[in-house]
């Protein structure tokens, strides 16, 4: 188990190898990358064996090396292995392997083929490093690295300007979250004196005893309100869409209520502030509201990238972070409540948008956001096991869905579902795996998703804060079923809507990962059935808090799913209900939701425009300041040179003239010595004679 450090290092080395030798190896670089990840997988198996058989799956094994001295302290880095780690290792390595095998077919012929695999290896290395890190600092470093590779991979086809914009947006939005993570890290370090997780967890209980006083809260609330008011005023003055204005008002009222109305859940302590800051980082990475805006745009990247990063692993990093830092969250229940609320809201909010999207990958993207909301919700209501279980199952079936959509895109050449149809007959294997994964996502009985979603609903039902989160979860299940059925119907059923598309089934190399993942979408659930809950024994927090099995909850969730499937089939598969007839009455809803609830516009107004104005102002200041300085320097130089010229004229020339004048005057004086007038010579003679005589007489 001490070799666990190999797990991220092997792909990292392979990244370096492919970067340097890629253009020589060309297609063989893919095999190298897959070999690396396979090696990591094998080491993970060995670690898991070691963990379960020898250590009986309990406790934590840690290895630390000193990394940097800070004053009298030493920051140590290292890795830790516990049940959470083992689970995540399996998720990441398996999904990464499947995606890389799929990419051999999907990215075939791309001119930067080796570079793609290099980036995939780098991502895998960073993600694996994230899950085995046991210090917040190493986690943060891996976190950033994961964000970097996400940027590189979204913008892989950098000739497309939309892709570059999407990559920038992804990086910047997650960056906003990362700031929170870092601040939380600092807060924890300052209050506990260490960045090692074990050390932090030991001291976090004390932090929960330090309440944060109200004036600061009031100040924060005032700032947030001010931002909203500014955006509001901007919207009014610019005279643009009234809907964003209405949303503003709503959000402002909401913020007001949340902070001002005395609420049992709003007491804040140091622990909860640290937890909320770290949660903000998770919000960014896992695309929760309000930082979810980057994930739909990230679909500009190649589909394998979407499958690996934006469905299964990177976005799961946020959920993993919350789970890993659970002791900090658990120290003050306020943080957990906020996590639950945000997760529930996101789950429903994103599902609404998934219903109206026409791009197949966009629907899946919003579905991902919604499911991540589910996971957060699960963690927030106390279902630690439930949330992580759902993370694992979701990784498998969502990756399957994305790869399947990749197969569809590769076969039809389009991403717009309105142009597809009837692919059931032309791409039978893709259809089969896709259906299995869809059923898992919906939570159809006996699939993996069924068990994990059920766990979450169970935890929500027994939440101490009321039942409304449970109802939100059920509503979300209905909507999930609805939009997924719509997607399947538009893509695979019906008649082909665009006669020009000649769809064909994908090759073996792309189908094998689909099969593997579909199988896992069914089998992975059986580690957590209500009758034999293996995962609940190991991946658990504290004293387990396991809820009793409730049939009504299970029925409620299943019923919601069937309802959704049925309604959607009636609309799209057997067109019984005509959507078009409802258009006049509900058209405004369609517009609102299709425009993503105007979130992008809101961000434009309250963030981007002020920033641009400030940047322009700074530029003007800078330019004038610099111009001023340059002109001042020039002016000074000119004055100096004038002074110098004066000096030169009067002093230097004066000296020269002095010499000349001296010679002239001297000459003029001495000229009288030789005038040619004899009498003057005689005079001089006489005078000198007298002087000599005087000398001789008186000396």
């Amino acid at each position, binding site marked *: 188990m001490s070799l666990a450090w190999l797990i991220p290092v092997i792909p990292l080395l392979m990244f370096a190898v492919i970067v340097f030798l890629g253009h020589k190896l060309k297609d063989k670089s893919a095999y190298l990358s897959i070999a690396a990840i396979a090696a990591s997988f094998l080491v993970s198996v060995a670690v898991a064996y070691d963990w379960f058989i020898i250590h009986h799956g309990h406790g934590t094994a840690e290895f630390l090396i000193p990394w940097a001295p800070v004053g009298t302290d030493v920051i140590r880095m290292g890795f830790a292995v516990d049940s959470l780690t083992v689970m995540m290792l399996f998720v990441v390595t398996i999904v990464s392997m499947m995606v890389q095998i799929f990419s051999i077919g999907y990215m075939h012929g791309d001119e930067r083929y080796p570079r793609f695999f290099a980036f995939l290896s780098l991502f895998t290395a960073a993600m694996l490093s994230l899950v085995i890190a046991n210090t917040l600092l190493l986690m943060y470093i891996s976190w950033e690295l994961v964000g970097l590779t996400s940027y590189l991979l979204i913008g892989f086809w950098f000739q497309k300007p939309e892709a570059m914009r999407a990559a920038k947006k992804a990086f910047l939005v997650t960056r906003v979250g990362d700031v929170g993570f870092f601040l939380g890290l600092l807060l924890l370090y300052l209050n506990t004196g260490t960045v090692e997780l074990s050390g932090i967890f030991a001291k976090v209980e004390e932090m929960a005893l330090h309440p944060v006083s109200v004036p600061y809260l009031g100040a924060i609330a005032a700032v947030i309100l001010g931002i909203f008011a500014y955006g509001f005023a901007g919207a009014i003055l610019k005279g643009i869409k009234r809907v964003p204005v209405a949303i503003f008002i709503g959000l402002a009222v909401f913020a007001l209520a949340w902070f001002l109305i005395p609420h049992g859940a709003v007491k804040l302590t140091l622990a909860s502030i640290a937890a909320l800051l770290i949660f903000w980082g998770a919000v960014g990475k896992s695309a929760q509201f309000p930082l979810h805006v980057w994930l739909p745009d990230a679909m500009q990247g190649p589909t394998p990238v979407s499958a690996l990063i934006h469905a299964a692993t990177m976005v799961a990093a946020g959920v993993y972070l919350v789970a890993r830092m659970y002791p900090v969250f658990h120290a003050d229940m306020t943080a957990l409540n906020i996590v639950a609320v945000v997760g529930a809201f996101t789950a429903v909010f994103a599902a609404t948008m998934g219903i109206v999207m026409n791009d197949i990958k966009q629907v899946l993207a919003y579905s991902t956001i919604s499911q991540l909301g589910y996971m957060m919700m699960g963690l927030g209501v106390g279902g630690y096991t439930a949330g992580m279980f759902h993370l694992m199952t979701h990784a498998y079936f969502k990756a399957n869905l994305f790869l399947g959509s990749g197969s569809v895109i590769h076969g039809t050449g389009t991403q717009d579902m309105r142009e597809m149809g009837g692919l059931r007959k032309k791409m039978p294997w893709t259809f089969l795996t896709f259906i299995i994964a869809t059923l898992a996502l919906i939570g159809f009985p006996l699939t993996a998703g069924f068990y994990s979603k059920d766990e979450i609903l169970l935890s929500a039902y027994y939440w101490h804060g009321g039942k409304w989160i449970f109802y939100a979860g059920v509503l979300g299940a209905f909507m999930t079923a609805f939009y997924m059925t719509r997607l399947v119907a538009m893509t695979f059923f019906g008649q082909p809507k665009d006669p020009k598309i000649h769809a064909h089934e994908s090759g073996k190399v792309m189908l094998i990962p689909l099969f593997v993942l579909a199988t896992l979408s069914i089998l992975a659930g059986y580690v957590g059935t209500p009758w034999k809950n293996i995962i609940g024994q190991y991946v658990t927090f504290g004293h387990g808090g396991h809820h009793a099995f409730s049939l009504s909850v299970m029925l409620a969730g299943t019923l919601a799913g069937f309802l959704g499937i049925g309604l959607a089939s009636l609309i799209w598969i057997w067109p019984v209900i005509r959507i078009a007839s409802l258009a006049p009455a509900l058209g405004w809803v369609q517009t609102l939701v299709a425009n993503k609830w105007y979130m992008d516009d809101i961000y434009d107004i309250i963030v981007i425009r002020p920033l641009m104005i400030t940047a322009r102002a700074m530029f003007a200041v800078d330019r004038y300041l610099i111009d001023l300085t340059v002109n001042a320097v020039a002016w000074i130089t000119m004055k100096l040179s004038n002074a110098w010229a004066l000096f030169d004229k009067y002093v230097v020339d004066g000296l020269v003239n002095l010499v000349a004048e001296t010679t002239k005057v001297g000459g003029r004086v001495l000229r009288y010595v030789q005038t040619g007038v004899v*009498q*003057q010579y005689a005079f001089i003679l006489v005078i000198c004679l007298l002087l000599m005589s005087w000398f001789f007489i008186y000396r």
Partner: protein
Amino acid sequence: MPPLSWYLYVSAALFALGLFGMMTRRNSIAMLMSIELMLNAANINLVAFSAYLRGHTMVGQMFALFVIALAAAEAAIGLAIVINIYRTVKHIDADEINLMKW
């Protein structure tokens, strides 16, 4: 007998006058006359010392005699030169004759 100093005074006066004349007069012949005056002053000096010196040997008088002879020769030559100059530039203004060589 008058004391020696009187002779010296006279000699000095004559010498000074001769000097003044030599330097001031524009006529060349007048300059020569002043030179003769200076020579005479010197002679007076010599003769006076010859008379008043102990160990009277008439050396001074001998000296004065030779001075007279030389003065004569010099006057002759000088006046010859003046006449020559007169023939060249048609005047003998000492102030105007200041070219060493034409």
